[in-house]
Structures are given as structure tokens and as C-alpha cells.
């Protein structure tokens, strides 16, 4: 059969799909499987990992109370950041969403553009504001309110607050999108059924915006888990979360432990994602039960 046959379609499909599929397969899926394989081994002083299969890394994470403390602190940090983002983000989205389209876009751009700036720069900004010689301390000192500098950094609170400001735009954008996709007729229908504004919010707006809330909280939590640089810069050497342990293990060349900690982090991500979806059930307004 010559050229110009309709089986070309199938060939074209695979010619298009194969390169990206191979790329993602080789550089995303395979490394991940390999990481899991590494996590199932003991340490070795000469190789990447020891020769025997063992669950010792996972056993250690599950039984050592040091890891428990860190995991709980990670969860606590994630939850606090998530909640802070939710309150601020929902309020902001609620104000932005009804604005005229052009104004809304510009307001959103002011929040989205900072997302493009590297987190290290945004964390540096908070160091400049909250550090020993930072804006806050120098202003307080010049007004004579304090003598010595306040220590505002290197704490759990500093990390939670800083990360919250870094991730907040994700929450706002998700919720604005959800709020804007709500048909105004639903709210009018609720009002026609004698619901006051508070009730129509509780029974109509909030449930219908749940897909946005779900994707926003999910994104914020997942990005918290990875935010090593922000945590290190704002939290200082002693404020460690799970991600810090991964780095510490890598610095100590304990590859299998680092791998196992990565999977602990992934598990945490999956569990919390599952909880968020179960709690908010965004599917019910997206037509998937």
C-alpha cells in the first residue's frame, strides 16, 4: 500500500504521542520506581544503596518518635497554612470575583505575577522585613518602642506566615474561578426561596465553590510539603519539617533513607489529598457524584 492510506492516522497518532510519552516515562515514571526500589534497601558506604532488600528505612520512620514529631509538625504546619490561606483567600476571592472582567483580571494579575517570582526572592523579602535589621525592627527602634531587635524569624510562626503569603495566590485564583462559574440564577433562586444572604452563602455559594476550595487547599498543602528553601530561610536551622529531613539524608549520602522519607512525604500528600476530597466532595457539583 502506498502513501495516502487512511491507516496513516494511526501512525501519525503514535508518532506524535511516542516522544512525549517516552520522555515522561523515562524521566518521571522510571526515576520514581527506581526511587522506591532504592528505598527498600539498607545503606551502603560505597554504593548508592546496600545489596539486601530490607524495610528498615520504613520501619525506622514508623517507629522512631523523632520522625513522628517531625511528621506531626509537618501536618500541623500544612494545616495551619491551609486554613490561613483559606480564610484570607476566600475573603479576597469573594471581593474580586464580582468585579467587572477587566478590573478582575488586573487584580488577579497582581496576585498571579508574584507566583512567577522565585520563592527564594519572596522569602528574602520577608527576611528584609522581619530580620534583625529588617524594616519592622528598624521602624520600631526609630520610634523608640523597643531597645533591642525583636526576633521575628527562625520560628514555626515565621515559616507558616511566610509560606502562607507565598501560596495565597493559588487559593485566591482557584476560588475566584469557582465563584465565577456559579450561575447567578442559583443565588437568585435561593433568595426567591426566602434565604437571607448568610443562608444563601451557606447553602448555595459555599457548596458550589467547593471545587475551587478543594483545588486551592490541595495545591497549598502539596506545595507546603516541598518548600524546603522557604522553610530553611524563615525557620532557621532548627525548624525542621519532613522535607528538611530528606535533604539532611541526602547531605549525609544516606540515599535509601532519603528515598524512604520521600515516599513518606508522598504518602502524607496522598492521605491529606484524600481527606480534603472526602471532606469537600467537589465531585458533587461537578456532576460526578
Amino acid at each position, binding site marked *: 500500500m502506498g502513501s495516502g492510506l487512511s491507516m496513516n492516522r494511526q501512525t501519525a497518532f503514535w508518532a506524535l504521542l511516542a516522544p512525549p510519552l517516552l520522555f515522561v516515562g523515562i524521566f*518521571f515514571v522510571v526515576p520514581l520506581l527506581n526511587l522506591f526500589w532504592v528505598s527498600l534497601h539498607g545503606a551502603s558506604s560505597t554504593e548508592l544503596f546496600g545489596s539486601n532488600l530490607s524495610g528498615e528505612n520504613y520501619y525506622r520512620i514508623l517507629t522512631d518518635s523523632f520522625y513522628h514529631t517531625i511528621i506531626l509538625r509537618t501536618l500541623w504546619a500544612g494545616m495551619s497554612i491551609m486554613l490561613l490561606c483559606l480564610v484570607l483567600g476566600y475573603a479576597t476571592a469573594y471581593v474580586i470575583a464580582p468585579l467587572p472582567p477587566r478590573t478582575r483580571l488586573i487584580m488577579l494579575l497582581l496576585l498571579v505575577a508574584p507566583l512567577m517570582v522565585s520563592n527564594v526572592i519572596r522569602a*528574602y523579602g520577608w527576611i528584609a522585613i522581619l530580620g534583625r535589621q529588617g524594616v519592622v525592627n528598624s521602624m520600631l527602634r526609630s520610634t523608640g518602642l523597643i531597645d533591642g531587635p525583636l526576633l521575628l524569624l527562625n520560628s514555626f510562626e515565621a515559616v507558616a506566615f511566610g509560606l502562607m503569603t507565598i501560596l495565597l495566590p493559588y487559593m485566591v485564583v482557584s476560588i475566584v474561578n469557582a465563584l465565577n462559574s456559579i450561575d447567578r440564577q442559583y443565588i437568585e433562586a435561593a433568595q426567591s426561596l426566602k434565604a437571607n444572604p448568610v443562608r444563601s452563602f451557606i447553602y448555595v455559594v459555599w457548596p458550589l465553590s467547593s471545587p475551587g476550595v478543594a483545588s486551592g487547599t490541595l495545591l497549598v498543602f502539596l506545595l507546603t510539603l516541598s518548600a524546603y528553601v522557604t522553610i530553611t530561610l524563615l525557620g532557621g536551622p532548627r525548624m525542621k519539617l519532613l522535607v528538611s529531613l530528606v535533604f539532611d539524608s541526602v547531605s549525609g549520602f544516606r540515599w535509601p533513607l532519603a528515598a524512604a522519607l520521600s515516599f513518606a512525604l508522598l504518602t502524607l500528600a496522598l492521605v491529606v489529598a484524600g481527606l480534603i476530597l472526602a471532606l469537600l466532595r467537589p465531585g458533587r457539583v461537578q456532576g460526578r457524584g
Partner: protein
Amino acid sequence: MRGLLIALTGFSYVVVLLPILIVVVTAFSASEFFAFPPKGFSLRWFEAFFASDSMRGAFSRSLQIATIASILATVLGTMASIAIARRKGTLFNLVQGMFIAPLIFPAIVLGLSLLIFYKSIGGVPDFLGLVIAHSVLGLPFVVRSVTSSLLAVDPALEEAGQSLKASPVDVFIFIIAPLIWPGMLAGGIFAFILSLGELNTALFLTGPGVTTLPIEIFSYLQFQGGQLVIAAASAIQVFMIIAIVLIAERLIGLKRIVRSE
């Protein structure tokens, strides 16, 4: 109630924008150390930035990596989108999910897995390793934005092209590409910006002498304290992003920029 909402909104904008503003303003300071408001205006820290080999090297390396990675992501992502945009079924959802996954996947896990993978296969040059990592991370942006552009194209246009004697290649060049290039450009720009600021995989994959600008800034902050040359480095990145956003606004419109994040 209304007042409280507006106050919270104002607070949101302040905490998101203020840190960046402070850094940019400080970069023009004339003083040796951080002070706010800055004492005097000068470009000395920008001069210092370009005078430093390591900073300048990291900056140009970041640009190179971002350029190559975003082009690679755009090409691969566009191919993938064209192949699967209109396909339905569990298998195609899975494939699509695989392309989108790096978007929400904890990036440090990706970084570590790539580092160990590179070591397992006998080592990969740092530069190439970073390009690959940033392509994987940029791919979802391209797939998402090209797919939505493709779905907006009436499928009958492709058949109309064929009915007018256009070969599949002609159909792509004359019909599909002109209609989806804003999506490709938006995806590519985001992949570029992401690569420029990326930390989580770069932390693992940069090596001695081969760092990116964000990692360079990070190690300065960690080990050398508050030299204002990092404010200049940061300001340069912020200005670049502003320039890119302005150009993108011209080319593809505000809506796409906001939606792509």
C-alpha cells in the same frame, strides 16, 4: 461584614506584594548594608552583580536552561496535546494525567528521584540534568494550555482543510498551528518562567560550578548573609518577569496569563 472582607483583601495584597517591592527598592540602595528606607540611590549593586563571575554565570546558565527546557516542553507538550486532546477513555485520561502530574507532584521527590536516577545510569551532565528536570516540570503547563486551545478549535476545520486538499502536515501548518499558537506560547512562557525561579529540583541537580540563579541567591542568603547584591539579583529577575508579562499581554492577552498559573 463588607468592611472586614475588604480589609482582609487589602491585607492579602500587602503580604503578597510587599516582600517583592521591598527587595526591588533595596536593590537600588547606595548603602553598604540593608536599611529601609534605603539611603541614597545607586546602581552599585547591579554593577556588583554583573562583576561577580558566579552571579553572572548562574544568571546566564539560568537563562540557557530556561530557554532550552521551555522549548523542549513546548514541542513535546504540543505533540502530546494534539495526540490526546480529543480522545476519551480511561487509558487516555491516565496518559493525560501522567503529563499533568508533575504540576502537583511534590517537586523535591521528583528532584531526588532524578538525582538518584542520573547516578544509577552512570551520571548525566548537570546542565542537561537540569534541562530535563525543568522540561518535565514545564510540560504540564504546555499540555494544559495547548489542550484548552485545541478543544476550542472546531474539529470540522480539520476536515474542511482535508476536503480542500490539505495534507495532514498542511492542516497543521495552515489551520491548527495558527489557531493554537497563543496556547503554545502561553505554555512555553510559563515553562520558561518556572524554570527561571525553580528551586526544588535545582537544589539536588546543581553541582559545583553549575548553579542556577535562584540556588546562587539561596546559598548567598544561607552562608554570606545580607549582601545587597542578592537584592540586585532578585530585582533583575523581577524585572525580567514584568517584561515577559507585558510582552505576553501583547501577544496572548491578559486572560491567558492569569489562567495559566
